[in-house]
């Protein structure tokens, strides 16, 4: 029953974007994110849309998967659109009813908001679609390395993340097995009211907890017996390497956003843009 769940979003491929260094991709994603808040005009959004379309084409990831990433924020989109649409008093009034008033200002603002959020999410999803969870973890670990100066346990954090990622498929398998075993004893998860159903999950959760703890203890022993003693002096099996692709990717993104921001400056809209950064 859980067999079909694809873990994470990663879409396997050999494209330009897949081959880029995870660290660079994360950094570029951050640049993309920040710049999205500077863009104010519909023209700017159009430029980004073209850039995003190009990146999707280059990544070899089906556009459908990218669009799917917007699904979780649909509620947020609707909510903010409604608020902006009905309660923004700027501009000319188009329709008025009771306390609701739709104005041109509200219309433009909510349009931009939707565009901004959708483009941000789609851009960010391109990162997780083309980078394996493990590479992402390594990338984050490397990027957070400077925090070691203030004794932040970066490597440990990365280790925790990789172990968690590694264990998810095992847990899914285990859950599936236990569900089958309890079903074979006549357990019924599909009928009854909500309390009954919640109670029906106890025979699954308890064995699952117990086996997780046992697994964790086993893993700790296995690590100890192979002399794990913290992150000090550990080397990586897979060393991240930045290559020409990363230089090209970085140049393209920086050039794009340099241009966009310059345009914004020239049109003197930056001051107007600033409040967006805190939204």
């Amino acid at each position, binding site marked *: 029953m859980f067999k079909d769940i694809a873990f994470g979003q990663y879409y396997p491929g050999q494209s330009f974007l897949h081959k880029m260094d995870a660290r660079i991709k994360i950094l570029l994603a951050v640049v993309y994110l920040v710049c999205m808040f500077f863009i104010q005009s519909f023209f700017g959004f159009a430029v980004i849309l073209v850039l995003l379309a190009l990146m999707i084409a280059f990544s070899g990831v089906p556009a459908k998967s990218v669009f799917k990433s917007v699904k979780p924020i649909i509620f947020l989109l609707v909510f903010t659109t409604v608020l902006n649409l009905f309660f923004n008093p700027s501009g000319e009034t188009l329709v008025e009813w009771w306390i609701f008033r739709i104005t041109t200002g509200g219309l433009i603002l909510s349009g931009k908001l939707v565009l901004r959020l959708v483009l941000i999410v789609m851009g960010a999803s391109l990162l997780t679609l083309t980078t394996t969870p493990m590479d992402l973890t390594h990338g984050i670990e490397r990027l957070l390395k400077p925090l070691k100066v203030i004794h932040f346990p970066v490597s440990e954090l990365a280790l925790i993340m990789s172990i968690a990622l590694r264990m998810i498929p095992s847990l899914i398998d285990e859950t599936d097995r236990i569900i089958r*075993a309890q079903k074979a004893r*006549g357990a019924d998860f599909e009928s009854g009211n909500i309390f009954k159903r919640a109670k029906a999950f106890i025979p699954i959760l308890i064995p699952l907890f117990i086996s997780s703890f046992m697994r964790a203890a086993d893993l700790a022993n296995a690590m100890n017996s192979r002399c794990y003693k913290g992150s000090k002096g550990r080397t990586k099996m897979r060393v991240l390497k930045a290559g020409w692709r990363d230089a090209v990717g970085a140049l393209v993104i920086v050039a794009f956003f340099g241009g966009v921001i310059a345009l914004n400056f020239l049109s003197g809209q930056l001051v107007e843009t600033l409040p967006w950064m805190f939204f």
Partner: protein
Amino acid sequence: MSIVVKDLNFVYSPKSPFEKHALINVNLTVEEGDFLAIIGHTGSGKSTFVQHLNGLVKLQSGTIIVDGIDLSQKKIDYKKLRGTVGMVFQYPEYQLFADTVYDDVAFGPKNLKLSKQEIDERVKEAIKLVGLDFDYVNQKSPFELSGGEKRRVALAGVLAMRPKILVLDEPTAGLDPQGKKEILDLVTSLHKTMTPTIIMINHDMDEVARYANKVAVFDMGSVKYLLTPEQLAQKQDELVKMGLDIPTLAKLKNYLANKGIVLPDDCITVEKMVEYLADIKAKGGANV
């Protein structure tokens, strides 16, 4: 007839890149009273097959009739089916969950909506059947028990449903030789007294030869052979090619045959073999 399986096919994740044909045209009949052993390589479809028998895996194509219940019908009485076919999974001790052994064993009968008195009766019977002392264990937490005892409790949890057909998936995995023997002897005595039909997945060919009366060999999703334990020796080459093995005694028998000492087919237990060999010696034959 206890179980009739006809043209059973099963595909995992159909029409996706992960599509996998787990079962291909499986035909198998298990009579009441059979002790069927299923052997096969990992991924040969044996687990998928046995999980069909009590409806844990939904039938895709073909027909299965289990003790008169037709699984190809739209409406299946799952409660009845699961009360009929008891399924003991691999490492069943990992399914224990309740505070006390009593409650854990009572889980199945409770799900069958039996009366309190009936549940009590069945729990007592099941715990006794698996060879545990009811007064000693019934109020203990299952997690305080030893590994072997936990497995017995899990088995009792299935037996408390009083199945007519008992399916066991590698019931001896991870046990020491003594524990293995105890579990298999227990299964044998259940076969005689309580559950007339037993289906067991097992990789240990010696155990298969000793306990089963039929052996189904699964390979690449279909039943390659349906043999008696006596016939296993004749299929040595084929089974080895599949990554399987034959019982030690069958190997010895084939080895002796190569050396010119031909033993009869039914020579599959140590006792029988010793008897035949002594016989040959007494007749003054075979000076190898």
